[in-house]
């Protein structure tokens, strides 16, 4: 066995891989719906939920904190939907407000908790930047359980989510409860994000949602294939990032994974055969050349 591939690294690699898989696959819907930044808002909005869960249960048990995060992230998303529907404030501003105000409120709670007696606030700090190295077997179970559940829901409601993503009005004319489906899909997205906060951190989680999907989008026009590809890209980047960071000190997993998925997205945007920028440029050049030749035009014209 390779010496650096010890038990901790294995746990982290499996965890990061699972996170990348779930976030990548489910992020496809967010990217297609133009809600890429919802992930960012959800992950920030989760902070007060985490702190409250910590206060109420008195533990930093993974499941409790994740559930607290999910509830807060979910409430935040509903607030965004409400503000966009009921006022003239646009979605970007609503996301910005929820993101920062929820986070600010979370900080108020956090600083207040830290002054409580025997508040072992360890673990709450890692929430900001994520500490993959603190992942344990119990965390893996939570990630696998909740992430698997989220994936299962999206498979069960596959057809409905597809209609929701591409033609919401059509779905409404079919008599589907589009508002309820919207909330369900958002809930699934919330779950896929909050399970990753401990390992990847608030700021970087949004990249894990968006980048794999943006990469996968360039290779296919089919939703099914896109979701699978995005999951694979996210999962592979998760494992690779964890292994890379196991190589030496001072290489945190979260940022490494983010840079890997971003690289995958950039390579795809520029090089993917059908949609890539570079192949498109080559094709245009070839067409131009053949047009010139066919018409017998001279080069200096």
């Amino acid at each position, binding site marked *: 066995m390779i010496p650096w591939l010890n038990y901790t690294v294995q746990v982290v690699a499996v965890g990061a891989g699972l996170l990348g898989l779930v976030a990548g696959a489910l992020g496809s819907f967010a*990217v297609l719906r*133009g*809600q*890429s*930044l919802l*992930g*960012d808002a959800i992950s*920030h909005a989760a902070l007060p939920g985490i702190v409250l869960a910590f206060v109420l249960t008195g533990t930093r048990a993974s499941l409790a904190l994740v559930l607290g995060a999910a509830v807060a992230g979910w409430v935040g998303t509903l607030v965004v939907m409400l*503000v966009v529907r009921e*006022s*003239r*404030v*646009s979605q*970007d*501003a*609503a*996301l*910005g*407000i929820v*993101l*920062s*105000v*929820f*986070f*600010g*409120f*979370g*900080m*108020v*709670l*956090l*600083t*207040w908790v830290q*002054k409580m007696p025997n508040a072992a606030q360890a673990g709450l*700090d890692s929430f*900001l*930047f994520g500490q993959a190295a603190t992942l344990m077997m119990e965390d893996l179970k939570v990630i696998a359980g909740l992430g698997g559940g989220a994936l299962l829901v999206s498979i069960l409601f596959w057809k409905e989510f597809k209609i929701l993503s591409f033609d919401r009005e059509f779905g409404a004319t079919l008599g589907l409860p589009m508002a309820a489906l919207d909330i369900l899909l958002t809930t699934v997205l919330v779950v896929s994000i909050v399970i990753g906060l401990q390992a990847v951190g608030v*700021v*970087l989680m*949004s*990249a894990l949602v*968006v*980048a794999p999907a*943006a990469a996968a*989008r*360039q290779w296919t026009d089919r939703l099914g294939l896109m979701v699978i590809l995005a999951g694979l890209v996210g999962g592979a980047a998760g494992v690779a990032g964890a292994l890379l960071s196991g190589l030496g000190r*001072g*290489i*945190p997993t*979260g*940022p*490494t994974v*983010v*840079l890997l998925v*971003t690289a995958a997205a950039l390579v795809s*945007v*520029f090089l993917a055969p059908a*949609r*890539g*920028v570079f192949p498109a440029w080559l094709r245009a050049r070839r067409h131009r050349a053949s047009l010139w030749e066919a018409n017998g035009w001279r080069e200096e014209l």
Partner: protein
Amino acid sequence: MSTLDLEIQLLAVVVATACALPGVFLVLRRMALLSDAISHSILLGIVLAFFWVRDLTSPLLLVAAALTGLLTVALVEGLLRTGRVREDASIALVFPALFSIAVLLIARYAGTVHLDLDMVLLGELAFAPFHRLEVGGVDLGPKGLWVMGTILLANVVFIGLFYKELKLTTFDPALAGALGFSPVLMHYAFTSLVSLTAVGAFDAVGSILVVALMIAPPATAYLLTDRLSVLLVLSGFIGAGSAVTGYWMATVLDASIAGSMATACGGAFAAAFVLAPRRGLLAARRMRARQRWEFRELMLLIHLLQHEGTADAETECREEHLVEHLKWNAKLAGRVIRDAGGKELLELRGDGHLLLTQRGRKMARSALEGT
């Protein structure tokens, strides 16, 4: 209230006002989340400049950070221009990547140096008064106050000088281009200002809460006014008010000042969202209720007009009949009749026959003719 309290509050007010002014245009241009992107990616500029000069207080850090802000905007635009990803996705691709590079650099090379990530992300207003600006041994007050004061001044001057251009490029970029103002140039000049403001402010409140100060007060004011000039002034005041409220909330709870300021901003927005005179949730609900009522009244008047002077007028124009014809319950019919009577739109004769007055007839006619 001690000098320390006063200085912190003054700084908080200056930071909040400086953030709210450019924030107005961010909200109007629907670029609110660009502030989030910029405030995160400037970390990279700070880290790089820090590695170069090895001094956290060097003004070079500000310059480098502002440049990184510009770089962020340019990268987002570049990615967007490939046509392969949407705007929201390109923002979400660019800033986490730049932020990741910064975090990696810190983790790898700055381990021995004090560059506290928490400090960068969360800021600490309470420490700001301890960094004094001294010239020739004379204490001129907190350094942050001077920096932010300058940035506030820059914002005021920029918006004052280019008010017309900003207004035009914000509301009608196509017209602005046609008239010879460059929307692109304005865009970059404006984003430089946002970067500079974010850099100055994050020292005090941290990069995440800069977003609250930039977006929430203008969005709040946006629910209260339709005039750009009023919007700017109002945003500044809401920001400043939230700052002071936040400070006292933090003092009472013994909690994070920046977090309390953001919470206060959120409270102001929530209040406007529910209570704003014309655009608030309650006002909208009241208006819908009033419209429903006016519509009922109109239905009644039109009904009376249709049957006025006809053979069945005696049976049609009675309260009991409305219950059947308009599917109203008896209580509602009575209320609508009383209300319309009170406005002298109809008269109730002794035998229960409803008669239109001159005014009521005119109103029903104009409604039917659609004028």
